[in-house]
């Protein structure tokens, strides 16, 4: 076999049956993550056919999407905290997991959190694994050199029943990011710039591999932010080659390999990076050193500009509709637009380093009058760490709300929503119409930009709020 890319190595390692011109490959799945919103019908399918879960030991469940972000002390309280339909999803998940022997990190677990935050945190997300979940941001786990992608609910049932998926081999796209980021410019700005460059459909049918000096310099938290939004470019998955940073991050995590297994795993992981001379179907180069903080102005993540640049003009009816929805005019910058809500959280930016970024801006400052700022940690473990560092005090002293972990205002399923016509600067990943609430207007940005905007009461340039 010739020179192989990271993706090809992981793909080839999991082939139960090779693809033919007639049939897709049967791909083995190492880790199946599930949550309460996209799994119930999959469990119905299993029940209707009398099927068992093939590998409950390779399946891990949590509660995140429709869970309240206020403490749930007893399940009885649920109906008071969220709509009864959301409470039902949660109860059904708890029942199904108990019945089928699936480990659930529920309200009683201090390991609960957003599904894409806890996998890495527990060390069960590892290089070279195939990881799936009924959620498109499963691409997050690719930051470790795993092949990780979102699947539909019928596929969730398929994996539960067989631990396999039927897949056509995707194409490959290398995104080479070179150079050093300037102060105030973060991983979130890098991925927004990439999506702006290739477009929301630009990665369709491809697995992206992010490479280059700017990527190698990122921490694991930052790499996850980048891979997380691969789906916003339409890509099947995003991957980053494992290196010392990856291995150091995983070392000693509760579900990472231990002892002799650790040694052999590391040896295998070291061989995963792309071989010299491996070919990609497409390549794109990005210069990280010239990037500015980025903000979206429209209703998809590809509609993005440097914060101090004017909103561009577009020709299509869709573009005009998008600007009208946002109440934005071409030719004017997003900078300075009044803000109603600021959301710091989601699987894109709710890890400890994101919270530290936000706290750096909030420290000694106040959330502007009339702005609601919500800070939602990605997991209960992050919540604890942040509190140990006193970040919660910084947020609360500034006048921001500090919550339990969950998806929260990223998709507004648990009651945390943005009002009609309100502008929300959000560290999440989707600015789709109505995503954060009916008529809600979302501006995607980094935690630094979001925090700066909360303080300014307007879309603000974080570079003016950095200290020292």
């Amino acid at each position, binding site marked *: 076999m010739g020179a192989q890319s990271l993706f090809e190595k992981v793909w080839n390692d999991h082939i*139960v*049956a090779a693809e033919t*011109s*007639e049939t*897709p490959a049967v791909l*083995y799945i*190492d880790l199946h993550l599930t949550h309460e*919103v*996209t799994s*119930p*019908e999959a469990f*119905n399918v299993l029940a209707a*056919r009398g*099927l068992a879960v093939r590998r409950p*030991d*390779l399946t891990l469940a949590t509660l995140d999407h*429709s869970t309240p972000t206020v403490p749930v002390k007893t399940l009885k309280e649920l109906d008071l905290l969220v709509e009864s*339909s959301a409470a*039902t*999803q949660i109860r*059904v998940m708890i029942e199904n997991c108990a019945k089928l022997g699936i480990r659930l990190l529920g309200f009683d677990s201090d390991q609960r959190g957003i599904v894409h935050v806890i996998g890495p945190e527990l060390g069960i997300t590892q290089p070279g*694994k195939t990881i799936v979940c*009924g*959620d*498109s941001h499963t691409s997050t786990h690719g930051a470790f050199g795993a092949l990780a992608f*979102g*699947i*539909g*609910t*019928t*596929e969730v*049932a*398929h994996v539960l*029943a*067989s*631990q*396999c998926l*039927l897949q*056509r081999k995707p194409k490959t796209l290398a995104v080479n990011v070179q150079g050093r980021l300037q102060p105030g410019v973060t991983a979130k700005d890098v991925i927004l710039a990439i999506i702006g460059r290739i477009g*929301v*459909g630009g990665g*369709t049918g491809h697995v992206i591999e992010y490479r280059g000096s700017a990527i190698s310099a990122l921490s694991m938290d930052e790499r996850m932010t980048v891979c997380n939004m691969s*789906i916003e470019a*339409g890509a*099947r998955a995003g991957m980053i080659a494992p290196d010392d940073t990856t291995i150091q991050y995983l070392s000693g995590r509760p579900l990472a390999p231990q002892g002799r297994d*650790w040694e052999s*795993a590391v040896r*295998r992981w070291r061989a995963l990076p792309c071989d010299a001379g491996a070919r990609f179907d497409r390549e794109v180069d990005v210069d990280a050193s010239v990037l500015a903080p980025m903000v979206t102005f429209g209703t*998809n993540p*590809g509609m993005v500009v440097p914060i101090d640049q004017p909103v561009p003009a577009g020709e299509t009816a*869709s573009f005009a*509709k998008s600007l009208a929805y946002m109440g934005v005019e071409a030719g004017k910058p997003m900078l300075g637009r009044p803000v109603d809500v600021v959301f710091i959280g989601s699987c894109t930016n709710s890890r400890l380093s994101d919270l530290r970024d936000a706290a750096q801006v909030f420290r000694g400052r106040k959330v502007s009058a009339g702005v609601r700022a919500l800070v939602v940690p990605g997991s209960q473990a992050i919540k604890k760490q942040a509190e140990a560092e006193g970040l919660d005090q910084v947020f609360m002293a500034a006048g921001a709300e500090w919550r339990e972990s969950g998806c929260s205002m990223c*998709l507004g*399923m648990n009651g945390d929503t943005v009002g*009609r016509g309100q502008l929300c600067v959000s560290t999440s990943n*989707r600015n*789709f119409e*109505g*995503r954060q609430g*009916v008529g809600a207007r979302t501006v995607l940005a980094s935690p630094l930009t979001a925090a700066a905007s909360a303080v300014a009461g307007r879309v603000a340039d974080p570079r003016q709020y950095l200290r020292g």
Partner: protein
Amino acid sequence: MEKFTTLTAIAAPLLMINVDTDAIIPSREMKKVSKTGLADGLFAAWRYTTPGGREENPDFVLNRGPYRQAKILLAGLNFGCGSSREHAAWALHEWGVRAILAPGFGNIFYGNCVRNGIVPVVIDNARVEAIAAQVERDPERNRVTVDLRQNLVTAPDGSTTTFALAPADREMLLEGLDAIAMTQKRDAEILAFQARDRERRPWIYP
């Protein structure tokens, strides 16, 4: 799953680009624990005048005259991008959609269509627009045909366009096959893989 062979039906144009699955069904409409009862929430933000309400917006295409009976959707580039929610395919299917013609689809949504008896037909944008223009002149009479046996779309004026669909996807739709049942037949191969793999990567198996 029901079989799809050929369908001649009213087609509804919804030609915006990048229509995401949050638009097809907003998350507030999917707090269900099964795949039924979702048609009501289809395109809720556009179809109804008030959020969560059910008063129809008369301007939205699926609320207009003959389009209420549409079984084919004419869509723009990157239709069904975004969230993996299969609820989008379930809602479309329950509402009555059986085929979608678009220049391109979000990957996960595409697969979800195939697994739910909706034919995702990729044809170029100019062609979708041309068909839409013919349909709009008289949606009731100017019907569109999707023939999966011949991989052929026939426009109201009789002009035809071929489309490609992966053989396994096509067969699944034609025969109404079920992927889970198909994979179950490969149990021996899966077991053999697991045995081999456990030797190579023992740490994967707790």
